């Protein structure tokens, strides 16, 4: 009877001195791989302007119709750029098709995965929220 108990305690003692496989989330975050697909993000040029030219290919290719609105406008040099870009993250399935379709590498999936919210409205991202922070 005592023998199985000691066997079990042995396993416990072995684990105490080995390195833990879990991490203390949320204090610690697990690093993700390079090809991880987080939420979509608009990419910027060095001068801070969005690379997006509002061609709407991502909106067209999006299988879950998460990209709701791309509002184009004409700049002073005749260039096309988006004044509004709305992605409904509640619908996003993180497939990365938008990134693949984009001719200007203007949208890509970043590594952000902590997207849970109490209110769904907070998951509807507009153009400012979609730009990289900082």
């Amino acid at each position, binding site marked *: 009877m005592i023998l199985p108990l000691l066997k079990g305690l042995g396993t416990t003692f072995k684990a105490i001195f080995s390195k833990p496989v879990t991490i203390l989330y949320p204090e610690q975050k697990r690093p993700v791989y390079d090809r991880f697909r987080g939420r979509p993000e608009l990419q910027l040029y060095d001068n801070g302007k969005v690379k997006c*030219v*509002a*061609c*709407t*290919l991502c909106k*067209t290719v999006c299988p879950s119709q998460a990209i709701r609105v791309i509002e*184009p*406008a*004409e700049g002073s040099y*005749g*260039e*096309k750029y988006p004044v509004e870009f709305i992605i409904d993250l509640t619908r996003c399935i993180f497939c990365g098709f938008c990134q693949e379709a984009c*001719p*200007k590498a203007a949208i890509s999936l970043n590594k952000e995965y902590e997207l849970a919210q109490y209110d769904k409205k907070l998951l509807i991202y507009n153009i400012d929220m979609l730009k990289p922070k900082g």
Partner: protein
Amino acid sequence: MVNLTIDGKAIQAEEGSTILQAAQAHGMRIPFLCYHPAIKAIGSCRICVVEVKPGPPRPQPACTTKVAEGMEVVTNSEKLQDIRRELVKFMLINHPLDCPWCDKGGECELQNLTHELGIAEVDYEAVRKPINNDFDSKLIERYNTRCVTCGRCVRVCKERVGASAINFENRAYFTDLGSGQVPLNCEFCGTCIEVCPVGALINKLFKYGARAWEMTATPAICQFCGGGCDYEVHVKDGQVKRVRRDEGNPLLCVRGRFGFGVISSDQRLKAPLIKKGGQLVEVSWDEALDFAAQGLMQVMAKGGPSAIYGIGSPRATNESNYVFQKFFRVVLGTNQIDNPGRYNYWRAVEGMAQVFGWPEIDGLNPEVLKYAKPFHSTLTLSEEAKGKGFPFVMGQTAKLKEADAVLVIGADVTPEMPPYGWALMEALQKEDFRLIVANPRKTKYDRYAHKKLRYRPGTERALVLGLMAAMVAANPDLAPQLPAEGWAACKEILQGVSLDDIAKQTGVAVADLQAAAATLLQAQAPAIIFGNDLLAQANGKENVVAVANLFLLIGQPANAGSGLYPIAEKNNTHGVCDVGVVPNLLPGYQPLAAGEKFGKIWNKVPSTIPGLTLDEALTRLENNAVNAPQAFYILGGDMIRQLPNSQRIRSILQKARFIVYQGAFMTEVAKLADVILPVGVHAEVNGTYTNTDGRLGQTRAAVSANGVRPGWQIITALSQKLDQPLEYASAEDIFKEMVSLMPIYVGLQPGYRWPCPDLKADIKGTFVPFSVEPEALGEGDFTLIVGKTMGHSGSFTTFAAGPMIVNGTQTLQINAEDAGKLGVAAGDTVTVSSAQGRIAVPVAVNDDLPAGVVFLADHFAEPLANSLTSNSNLCRVNIQKG
């Protein structure tokens, strides 16, 4: 028919057709780039090459090679694909990778070809072509870098539009799309944009508006002239982004293509307004309708139903206008209705009716079909059905190109009615076609005319008499081709006419008269186009009688293309007359005495006492006559701008005790109204229009009406408030009732024209004498013509961005010599005065006008051209600098 095989499949093709047409007719695809169904093939791009046996040992272009008996065609061999691939690669060397933001992306023919041929990269290099883009032109942007030099724009502009405004610059590899004009100075019809296979020509109003695949297309009818072209409105997110016509016929005019802004204009009336304490305030529909009903009841209580006068709308649908006249005849019980065509197109109707008779159709099957498709006539022809009257001598636009001689008199075709202009361009491709243009000013078609008759304004009838007299002088045995009464008496008069007197009166040389008469006399299918310049005169009806007499003499309506072509000003000018918005006729030009038949359906027999014409009604109110109308119910339009003598019209309307205005914009008339009921326009409502040649067009609601209502719904709601409800479920429902009462619309359906072509016609006419007294124009140094200019249609398009960009301000068009005498240059302001009023207006020097004649457009609210006129579009004016 010719037998041949294409890719092993045996087919039959029409003789004279090309391999490409034959393949397309049998659903086989041959790629092409420079070919377009609307223009002549030139075979320059060589994408459509095919192998032909028997034939030369090298590939032949399918778009220019005609089919032959026993021909074997291969369209898709590896060799051909290689040739096509290489050719497209050459085009791609210089083609910028603008696809993501080029508006053409998604519907670009070069893009499709590149995909189809599987071109992944271009392994050629060459010097870059210099960038020479044009962003400065109005409405159109040109990108020479994107151009593939297919020449479609150049050819369509030359062949179909007749403007020849764009051309190629430089040669060979450096060939560029240009015109020598930056910015562009043309008609701005935008047809070049439509035919461009790539994004070298861009519509500025559409630019970046939507991607091709994001829009839904809904068929609608253009509102901006009597042609009523059918087009598609392309809608994204409830907004009209652009309009297009079908592939085979890309032609639209500037207001058609760029005037759709009226729908989303921020000047649209959005909510009902009523006058409270002298101010118009927004109220709910219910309150506005109550207020309107009370106002009308109060006037009726005092003056009876005939104290209310209704003015129909040439822009409202047939259904709205039909319900409107029914509202007056059944709910109010009066025939006091008319439409603004009284001052224009109705004169053509009455004039033609005087010579050829009112339309009558007998011998229809008595049964009315219970079930018919939406907007299809419920009446059917029997074996012995016969028709007569003027509609049988009216021409149709689609056949105009088959005429062999056309006389254009008193019309500036392109601004008034572009579809006639395109038909003339098609006719001009024939070698034996002859065009005679008679107009006091130089118009666009003068450059193509074989004979120009520059007569003095107001002498149209003398000119027509001169033409007839010259015909009789040339051929004393002349007799009309059609059965005609009164020819002997007429001939006697014509033989007594001195051509020298006519020449003195009209200013047209005798030789020119004789030459024009000879041309018309020789023609097998002569046609006469006449328009606003002639109809809007005080004696417009007499002018039409003269023209109709001339047609009775030379016309051969049995030959395709021969006919009278009056120009209706708006898309439903013809329809509003057809459906009975006139004081003396019931729907379908039926006399008031035929009211019994209507009583059965309407549950009330309409009154047999004719109402007053619009002219009489206004005059009576002006003179405070006892039985003058006291209240007006006006469907849209701006009478103050459009009718002669604006001040008079304004002061008369100010006298009215109550005005209900049902319109889309705050026009000058709306400002005087007591109730304004906002109404939906063409792409917001369902219904039909009847265009100038009697063709029925169906328009569909493409965008939400956003709180405004279709015209007929407002009228039926108002009838409910008056406790005599007119009840209809839909526009189809109204159409069904309407056509069951209108024999003239027998067999009619959308896209078809009345009278029904299967109907046997009994055409005969009577020569009606007319006077040749010139119009009384008053005193002054110059003759003013008030007319239509390119880019606008009535007051409607002045609320749309597109036409206002091209033509945004009123200018006084004056000859350089006259301007010199007055000491003014282009842009200087002058004061124009007549007995009726004076306006200050900037000058535009235009040598299209002869000395002593000046021109103003009637579209603009400020300054108001019609404040100078008295009862005609012509008047004498004085002009002073400053």
